[in-house]
């Protein structure tokens, strides 16, 4: 069991919600930075079927719901990405991320925040879903109600960004 408590976190907040292509281009730059433990993509849910109203249950084709490929790993985007939270080894990584973002975002601005944005200790819901011996590396990465598992991004043989399955 890995202990994730105590690692610093930072969050990329662009002024616009990102398209899958932009998310892919940004992530390709971000994952090259050494010292990133976990990445969480947050945003508005893009449901597969229409959730409410007279058309409830009908298919909901949406161009922002895509599978993107980052460092040879497939990531199914279920959301339109609004923020990207990173758990990092130490705070010096934040400055590298900030430098990448300042260079990357040209058409609109973006800021990088430091703080605690991702769950690092199991909650009661996590206990109910995963039990007392839950892998803490998984806590906070996925909604406990979901069946999907997190993606693993392997940038090189030596470096793994994400959760080891």
């Amino acid at each position, binding site marked *: 069991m890995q202990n994730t408590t105590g690692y610093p976190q930072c969050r990329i907040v662009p002024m*616009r*919600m990102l*398209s899958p292509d932009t998310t892919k281009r940004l992530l390709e730059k971000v994952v090259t930075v050494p010292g990133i433990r976990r990445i969480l993509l947050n945003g508005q*849910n*893009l449901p597969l079927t*229409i959730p*409410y109203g*007279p*058309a409830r249950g009908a298919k*909901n084709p949406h161009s922002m719901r895509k599978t993107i490929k980052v460092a040879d790993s497939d990531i199914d985007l279920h959301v339109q990405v609004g923020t990207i939270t990173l758990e990092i080894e130490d705070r010096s990584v934040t400055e590298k991320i900030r430098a990448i973002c300042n260079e990357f975002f040209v058409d609109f601005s973006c800021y990088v925040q430091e703080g605690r944005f991702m769950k690092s200790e199991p909650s009661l819901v996590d206990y109910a879903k995963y039990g007392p011996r839950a892998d803490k590396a998984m806590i906070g990465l996925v909604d406990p109600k979901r069946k999907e598992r997190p993606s693993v991004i392997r940038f090189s043989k030596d470096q793994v960004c994400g959760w080891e399955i």
Partner: protein
Amino acid sequence: MKHTPQYGPGTSVVAENRRHQMDPGHKLTTLRHITENDIVLLLGHHALGARYPNVHPPLAEQQEPDCPMRKLVKPTEGAKNGDRVRYIQFADSMFNAPSQPYQRTYAEMYRFRAIDPGTLSGRQIVECRERDLEQYCRLLLETEMFDPALVSLRGATVHGHSLRLCENGMMFDALQRCILDNDGMVKYVKDQIGLPLDKPVSVGKPLDNDWLKKHSTIFHSLVGTPLRDDPEYIEYLQRIHTLRTKYGFLPTEVQKP
């Protein structure tokens, strides 16, 4: 002396725009043309070319009771024909959309007859007879009250008002009812409840940021006109706040004018 309504307080451009939308004597600028058929498609209430279903016989065929109010209030076309009550619902982005939910309700109450608006923080629905609705939609969609990117028809799954915009400047829509096409036009590919349309319905090009800032009806300290720039509006809000607090707590505190 003839009473001249003020419609609203304020000296800022936002206050002026609010008054323009509310004043039925002010002609709103038409910025685009949407055909009747396209409006029927967007609303999705009945099939193209189909007759309007009705819920009661036309009033002319009914025995109307002898009622002074019925003589005084003339029925709308929809009511005369016994149309069903149907709706249109809008979500307006807080990033300088030309109209906003509360503003819509005020404007519609001044301009339209026989309507039943429902106002929420991020969306506004208006219900009325089907035939009347299609006429009212013309004003709501073709004039300066509508912007293709920042105002959206959303019968259900309305989330988007308070969210950041998408990269292309469109308001977020979980159902992606409209898209910004390569030719720069916004096209609806689904009707307001999210069912796919047989052919896309174009609603024109998104308006530019300068125009939106000049025609917005929402105060926004970052991208638009801050409320602090309009002391008259603040004075009005503070007066309302003070009076309602005092009336609720100790009405005797309120001095009569």
